[in-house]
């Protein structure tokens, strides 16, 4: 996962799924929930709003998909101005 600040001070979070299978994920961006799919062996970009609007938070919960991807991953990204901080939790199930 990478996160960069664009020229307009918005933050772009890129999640790369390196598995051969698509992964389903639940997303919460500043309190708005959604379901997304991370395509196999591809990058998915999530745009966080620009600066000057306070703190922005992205919470992504990536679900396992069989033996190819047995772990569950939670990503927590916080951005404010040009500062980006993130935590990730990785757990195997079973």
């Amino acid at each position, binding site marked *: 996962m990478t996160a960069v600040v664009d020229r307009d001070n918005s933050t772009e979070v890129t999640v790369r799924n390196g598995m051969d299978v698509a992964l389903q994920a639940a997303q919460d961006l500043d309190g708005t929930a959604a379901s997304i799919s991370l395509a196999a062996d591809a990058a998915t970009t999530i745009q966080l709003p620009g600066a000057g609007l306070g703190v922005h938070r992205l919470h992504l919960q990536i*679900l396992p998909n069989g033996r190819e991807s047995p772990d*569950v991953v*939670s990503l927590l990204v916080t951005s404010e101005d040009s500062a980006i901080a*993130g*935590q990730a939790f990785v*757990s195997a*199930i079973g």
Partner: protein
Amino acid sequence: MHAQLTNRLDVGDERLALVISGAKEIEPGSRAMLLLAEGLFRLDVVVAEDTLRTVLRNLSGGVIETETTLGTVTGESILFGDAASYEPGRAGLGFTITTGADAVWVRAMIATLRFADRGTVQVGAQAILLQAPVS
């Protein structure tokens, strides 16, 4: 409103398996609900100086037995971006909820980031809930 993400996990049989994750940004000294598993438990946290205190509330009507060996909590907690400059901390928590013949194992990882400029601490967590096999 409490924001967390909860999803069911497929473990290949009919057992209950859930992942719950959430985060709260709180001021030191204040208490906040971090994770809620309806009908099972509620996990609150309190940050005081360099100490993270967890408060586990039993909502199950059964018995909760906590594990004191942190080695039982498996998984990884990873930092990225500028996180290393925010005094990161990590803790683990494991417990079993037993109600009659049913038991649910819970393994939680908790991580903190201290935002000194905002005077707050972000506490994030992920918990895996797994129903024990019926013996």
